[in-house]
């Protein structure tokens, strides 16, 4: 494959606009948002490139410290997405998640993380188009802010 060489070179070296490069972590539940992202992929809905997804069974599994850990390790944005309220595969996991992330959302600015760098939302398994919109809007905002100054929280 001809392009293989270019790719290998791109790895580890600095892309042209590396100054603007951001890293975004998405933590999503298996049943709704991961499947919604799959649906977006199957429908070939083009998305911002910076999102990296991590799959957990339920947003109720997500410890807010995961998000804080990600920021500590240098993430420029963290997105959390699960089933819509009322639709949780496990009945109520997203309700527990909502309380925790509402609190985290309000706390992060005190740690020096701008509000647009964190978002929690709901995308169902049938909402591929919504997933595309959520990713593009969120990553777009993080890119507008640029990489986070100073890695420590």
């Amino acid at each position, binding site marked *: 494959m001809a*392009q293989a060489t270019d790719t290998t070179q791109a790895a580890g070296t600095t892309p042209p606009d590396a100054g603007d490069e951001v890293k975004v972590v998405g933590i999503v539940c298996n*049943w709704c948002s991961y*499947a919604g992202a799959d649906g977006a992929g199957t429908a070939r809905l083009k998305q911002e490139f910076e999102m990296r997804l991590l799959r957990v069974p339920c947003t109720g*599994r997500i410890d807010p410290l*995961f998000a804080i850990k990600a920021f500590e*390790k240098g993430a420029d944005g963290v997105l959390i997405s699960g089933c819509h309220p009322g639709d949780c595969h*496990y009945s109520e*996991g997203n309700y527990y998640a909502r309380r925790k992330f509402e609190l985290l959302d309000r706390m992060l600015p005190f740690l020096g993380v701008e509000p647009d760098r964190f978002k929690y939302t709901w995308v169902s398994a*049938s909402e591929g188009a919504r997933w595309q919109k959520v990713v593009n809007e969120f990553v777009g905002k993080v890119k507008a802010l640029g990489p986070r100054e100073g890695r420590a929280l």
Partner: protein
Amino acid sequence: MRIGVFVCHCGTNIAGTVDSRGIAARAAELKDVVHTEDLIYTCSEPGQSAIQKAIIEKGLTRVVVAACSPHMHEVTFRRTVEGAGLNPYLFEMANIREHCSWIHDDYGLATEKAYEILKMSVAKVRQLEALVPNEVPVNKDVLVIGGGVAGIQTALDLADAGLKVTIVERETTIGGTMARLDKTFPTIDCSACILTPRMVDAAQHENIEIMAYCEVDKVQGYVGNFTVDIRKKAAMVDWVKCIGCEICVQKCPAKAPDVFNVGLAETKAIYIPFPQAVPKRAAIQVEHCRWFQQGKCKVCERVCPADAIDFEQQDEYVQKEFGAIVMATGLDVFPWENHYHEYGSGNIPDVISGLQYERMLNASGPTSGHVVRPSTQGIKGQEPEEPKTVVFIQCVGSRDESVGRPYCSSVCCMYTAKQAILTKSHVGMDTEVYVFYIDIRATGKGYEEFVKRAQTEFNVKYVRGRVSKLYEDVIDGSRKVIVRGVDTLLGKQVEVAADLVVLASGITSAEGAIPLAQKLNISYDEWGFFKESHPKLRPVETNTAGVFLAGACQSPKDIPTAVAQASGTAAKVLGLLSRDKLKTSPQIAIVEQNRCVSCWKCVEVCPFSAPQKQEQRDGTFKSHIIETVCQGCGICVATCPVNCITLKGFTTDAIIDQIEELLLA
């Protein structure tokens, strides 16, 4: 630890945008990775064999496959690695197709992203441990929710195979939408002649219990062991005593809208929806009953020969256990009146829905099968008038984004052709019949030929174009509905003065579908249709194990499709329940008891009551999670204040390692 990494090309699905070979080669640099390989189609037989060969020859103890979504092939590859003697839970999938190659165009950037996704999976696989599923006994009884043609078919298939089936139906009779139809396309068979014997078969089957006028109130448990609370709605009639003689209906003085006849007629406050109802039992509509509204009457009680009327009756709740649940809740007709104001919002009497026309065509319907103009009905000293010009308008509430319904309802083209033919045969061949259509969708067996027959043999005039407006006007002294539209083939305006307009109203999900889906924790789309697990791999399963789909609750379907799917669903249920024990997922939570502080927060948050207070040797109590009850959501894990609960397969270490692997690069 010896990790093997396999990167899929998926033909060009992945390799078209991602350098699969390149990232496979680069993965060799990752810690513990001893074997890397790129495969053209990893899920194919040669692909799976290559994985098994590498496991055996290279002594791999962990496997990562970078390919499609785990929702697609995680189960496939778990079996593959197990076939080579590796524990299936020492496997991890990196999704570089749906989440990468299919959503990006830039080859370099997509390759880089795919490699990062792969690295995260390698980081995770290092943290995995061998897991062994538990086994639970299986209850072999099946609940079918909805007694339309799909539910009846599934129930009969299952019952014939020897399983006990309960049909829960919210109306007083089974039959569903098909019971309201006059004829069926493309054969013009009598709908009732097909359906009612099936209804009777279900009622008389030794393995089927029909719970009509009941609703599912609450669902607990999991595949193989569901506990369902069912509400028996108060009919104000003792159904053990009621013999369905209809004397009460004849004598009842209080009128009520006839829902079964879609408002074309009136019924009584005490009613039986139609003559062939199964079970044939009367029920009182309290909101229309004189006794309940005005405190006097009780005529039904006086005339009932079976002493069945019970004004004191209350809703009752029963609890039943099932191993599997089939959703067969059917459909509703799109409420066009609320959306199509250009068609008169339901205020023009001679503009009716397709289902209303179906009732009108039916011999046991409100007009005894005579086609009449509703505006001429019920006038003293005057016979209702037959229409001379009938216009059908297709795609009302289908393929119309302006009313939020972009989908095709799949049956309207065909039922319109059928109704057009029936119009000619009921009223006369000299009747003028027009069909305004967008496209004709006649994809089933014998369907295209049927539409052609309507056009040629019955001379139904098909006009390609939308109707923009319907309004009433008086022409030559007679009241007409003016149909103003466009013929897009001729490129000109068309106006027809019609006596009757039938709207091919589309299909929407059944009322209450969404709250019911929430009770069962199954997914649904924005219109309330239930979502299958995969359109081709698991088309009748939902993402909730043990819950299946049959009929139009999944998407609009005609009768042949609904029935075929219902039998397919029965086969899937039989497959599940053919075993005496079910393997449960071992990806569940476990408590490290010596660190448990007995705060019982896990007990409070668990939706399944999996954590229990377990007495220890020293008399203290610690949390203990019952393995076969835990569903592996991990809510307790994130709640435990001392982090003494671990979710196998999704450990905190595994999650943190993935985050670090991604960000430390």
